[in-house]
């Protein structure tokens, strides 16, 4: 199994979720994060001075999946999250050794 984490622009979240649900992914977990990268932050005015706020609000979604779903998931995310501007984000794939559903104690794929 894999744990796929995608850091995306917050306003794409709904689109990403529908794209994933179209390929059968229902469960996911969402984090609000601050991103630092190439995308530049915005300026803010404060009584006659402009300051740069260097982080960008981002959303991270985390999805535990079976190995064979990996490519579909990555494609779905790319297609739904892309705006073709810097800062569209990253996808990170890490190995997932086990998953357990708390309610039933099922493990492995059936816990997802």
């Amino acid at each position, binding site marked *: 199994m894999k744990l796929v984490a995608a850091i995306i622009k917050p306003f794409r979240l709904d689109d990403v979720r529908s794209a994933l649900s179209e390929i059968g992914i229902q469960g996911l977990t969402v984090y609000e994060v601050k991103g630092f990268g190439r995308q530049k932050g915005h300026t*803010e*005015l*404060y*009584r*006659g*001075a*402009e*300051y*740069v*706020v260097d982080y960008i609000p981002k959303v991270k979604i985390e999805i535990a999946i079976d190995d064979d779903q990996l490519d579909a998931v990555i494609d779905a995310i790319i297609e739904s999250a892309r705006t073709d501007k810097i800062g569209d984000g990253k996808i990170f794939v890490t190995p997932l050794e086990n998953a357990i559903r708390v309610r039933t104690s099922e493990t492995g794929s059936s816990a997802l």
Partner: protein
Amino acid sequence: MKKSGLFIGLSALLSFSNAIAADEFSGADTAWILTSTALVLFMTLPGLALFYGGLVRSKNVLSVLMQCFAITCVSTIIWVIVGYSIAFGDGGGANAVWGGLSRAFLSGMSRDALAGSIPETVFSMFQLTFAIITPALIVGGFAERMRFSAILMFSAFWLLLVYLPVCHWVWGGGWLGELGLLDFAGGTVVHITAGVAAIVTAMVLGNRRGFPRSAMMPHNMTMTITGAGMLWVGWFGFNAGSALSAGGDAGMAMLVTHISAAMGAFTWMMIEWKRYGKPSALGAVTGMVAGLGTITPASGFVGPVAALFIGLAAGSVCYFATVFIKQRLQIDDSLDVFPVHGVGGVMGTLAAGIFVASELGGAGLADGVSMGQQLGVQALGVVAVIAWTVVVTYLILKLVAIFVELRVNEEDETVGLDLTAHEESGYNL
């Protein structure tokens, strides 16, 4: 000076404190000053507290709210004990400089004692709300780094040695009032003293850690704007209440106050729009406070068109003063008390000497006084109050520093004053 027109409020006050005359009781005036008292307290609690509280970082918000509350309490207690007496008592031979202690513990303030046309209790309560907001305004200068115990001591001494004497000089029968200084609702007494004290304190304490390198953005602009709205509304009590009566003077004072606020906000907004392409809400409300502070000393003397000019001057001059002090001089008068209140107070006090002229729509200069003479008195008042405030504020800080460190330690400043000074956090959302 057409006494009847011009000095309705102040003459009552002056004559009261000089024990010259007592007007007839007016229920209407009483009703309005009771209301004004509520409005001015509202300016501090929660108005100013929120205005300032929103501007600091989240970890210090309660410390600011708490300081405003605590100063309210301390000022009140001092007022009862000796404050009212020092400001409005009859100092006898020394009356030019202070009011003495004969009215300590508000002695002799019976239910039916009058001050002008209103009960003395009402007059005293109304004036107390000014003695509350003035030291509270200084909080903006030392925010986010001063030790709470030092703040209490400083505020107490400052009230005793700066506010109360200056108040007596101007409104309590002291030398500046006698000279004919025009200060309707507190350009010298309130705004100059507070603004100057704030920057002196900021310089003695030193800048906040990280200033000016890292941006210290307001943690809750909605709180600041809420406070700003309350200040605007409350200021009607501040300025129109200073007429000490419910009539044409109060009406005109409210009108010009409102106009200047709107014009100050609009001007600051436009300057930002021009310079940065975008007007900010913080800019608008800061311009509003500048407009309000600036019209304050002039509010009982000038007409509506003058108010447009005063607001314009407030919004622009205070803007550039803020930029100059914060960006250029890099003095961390954290919430810009001096450039807004100090500079505004100076401008307004001088403007009062000009726009009072009846040709300019004002209430009219005193008989036999030329504009030049009046401006001279105004300038003298400004200089004297600045000088006194600088020196005494500095000495008080040095005095307090003997008993307790003025500034919190580095770690506490980093963690924030809410947890380290008050064991609380602002939000657990």
